[in-house]
């Protein structure tokens, strides 16, 4: 396979196109602007649609409109812009429409910074908008993994008829790495598989006209709708957990981390291995569903003394790590906020200091 040197944001955009995405609605915000820029050039070449919306609110509602036709639709933004999209995301989840939302996370709260951040973990995994819903959330840790995940994200969205979020950070989108791109895929809406898709032929459609809607005005109907959603979420939890286990053999401490931070933690783990210290890592690739059982099982291995969660925030995934461990082993935390990426040396030092007291 030929390797191509590509910038993360452009690789993600191209991977979405190759997964059959032909509709992109977005708005400029650093550090994701290269995604709409790339789409604005590429979509006309392949007969797709790039439209710069008037706002993030406009963009996500355009996604709602286009997703209701059954086509593969993408929007991307960065933290403050993703906050603006939350209203639309909740409607999309309620109306059960598949689409992919990219969040290139930066530092917060508020306007925060334009450098990498992981402070949107809660927003991405615990709802974000109003109402009882979940997004499937993928957190790639490299440009190649981001590419590979784009087609999985679209397939997952279609399979469960739900919005899927891919969270990266400024680091993944801004760096260049040698990658392999998948083959181009054309996507055709199949009304057998998507009988709900609106195409204007509602009057004569044998399945009845499409009503793309998240409103269920009676308590009974809304309750029934939520039960249906929850059943789908349980199915996703049972089938879609993805994680990477790294260097787990004879691990004394397990590091948990996601995205770019996991990659930095890997460097610390590799350094320590050379020094004869075994540290393992569980890296959730799906932040929701979270690998609760898998992490707990790993931490219950006889040699494991503790878990260290490392994040570029004040400790958000930490809450899920603690839920997974459920008090059965000590859980410690090392994090930076304010977009100051932790270094391998700092993580190494933290692990060694933990080791002294364990």
């Amino acid at each position, binding site marked *: 396979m030929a390797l191509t040197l590509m910038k993360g944001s452009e690789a993600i955009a191209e991977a979405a196109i190759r997964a059959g995405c032909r*509709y992109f*609605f977005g708005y400029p915000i650093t550090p994701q602007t290269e995604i709409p820029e790339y789409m604005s050039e590429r979509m006309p070449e392949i007969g797709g*649609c790039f*439209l710069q*919306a*008037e*706002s993030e*609110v*406009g*963009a996500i*509602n*355009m*996604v*709602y*409109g*286009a*997703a*209701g*036709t059954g*086509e593969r*639709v993408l929007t991307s933004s960065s933290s403050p812009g993703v906050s603006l999209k939350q*209203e*639309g995301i909740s*409607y999309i989840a309620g*109306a059960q429409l598949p689409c992919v939302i990219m969040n290139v996370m930066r530092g917060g709260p508020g306007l925060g910074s334009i450098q990498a951040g992981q402070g949107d973990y809660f927003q991405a995994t615990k709802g974000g908008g109003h109402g009882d819903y979940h997004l499937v959330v993928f957190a790639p840790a490299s440009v190649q993994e981001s590419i590979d995940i784009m087609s999985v994200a679209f397939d997952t969205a279609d399979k469960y008829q739900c919005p899927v979020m891919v969270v990266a950070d400024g680091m993944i989108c801004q760096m260049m790495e040698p990658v392999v791109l998948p083959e181009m895929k054309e996507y055709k809406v199949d009304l057998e598989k998507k009988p709900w898709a*609106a*195409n*204007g*032929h*509602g*009057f*004569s*459609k044998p399945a009845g*006209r*499409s*009503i*793309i*809607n*998240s*409103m269920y005005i009676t308590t009974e109907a809304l309750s029934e709708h939520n039960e249906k959603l929850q059943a789908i979420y349980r199915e996703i939890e049972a089938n879609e957990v993805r994680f990477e286990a790294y260097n787990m053999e004879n691990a004394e401490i397990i590091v948990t981390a996601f995205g770019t931070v996991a990659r930095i933690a890997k460097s610390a783990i590799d350094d320590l291995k050379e020094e004869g210290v075994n540290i393992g890592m569980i890296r959730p690739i799906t932040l929701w569903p979270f690998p609760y059982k898998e992490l707990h099982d790993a931490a219950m291995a006889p040699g494991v003394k503790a878990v260290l969660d490392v994040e570029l925030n004040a400790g958000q995934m930490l809450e899920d790590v603690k839920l997974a461990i459920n008090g059965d082993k000590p859980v410690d935390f090392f994090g930076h906020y304010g977009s100051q990426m932790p270094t391998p040396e700092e993580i190494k030092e933290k692990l060694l200091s933990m080791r002294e007291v364990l």
Partner: protein
Amino acid sequence: MAVVFEKTKMLTDTVFHYCPGCNHGIAHRLVAETIEELGLEDNVIGVAPVGCAVFAYDYFNCDMYEAAHGRAPAVATGIKRVHPETCVFTYQGDGDLASIGTNEIVHAAHRGEKLTVIFINNAIYGMTGGQMAPTTLIGQKTTTSPYGRSEEWSGAPIKVCEMLSQIPDCYYAERVALNNTANIMKAKKAIKKAFQYQMDGHGLNIVEILSTCPTNWGFSPVEALKWLEENMIPYYPLGVYKDKGAE
């Protein structure tokens, strides 16, 4: 027996939830008849708003979306970009289009989206129970302007057709009213034009319909028609504000 009149097939048999004397029912019928008369029954997607017409998806007998408050023009944009040959319309009230959704309607007009927008202006928030709208007249009492709307405090009522007609790629903007038979006939003509222009590849097309809200205005249906004529029409003059097809 010869059939002299039939309900348009573009309305379902679902009973309207609208209050007695409310003009939404007439507006729905005019839109539905237009769709049928233009032969668009199997090539049309509608977008319902948040407000009194929130259940419009139950009434229009075609593919329908329910949009978030004010977002219908953005939702319709997403649909139209996928199905450029399909007729796409939004049906919005004044709280929806003229307050929370100004950004969406202004930019849909700026992009010249090939859409038809049916805009119901009844000078009040109906669904939430009679609050002040951006279209509420000066001095008009509502549940959030109990002393009457003050221009000093809340500004003057927004004139949507006047505003949108300034936008270069707004193709057609007309204001009509449903207060008497002659005006209803004119409204039908305007709606038909707004749909025809879209199918000819033009946009944005908007028809602003002055409508009554007897319940929240606190009038009988007949009094409400009179109030519309005496108070709304002088501030919101009827007529064509933009018609690039006629230029």
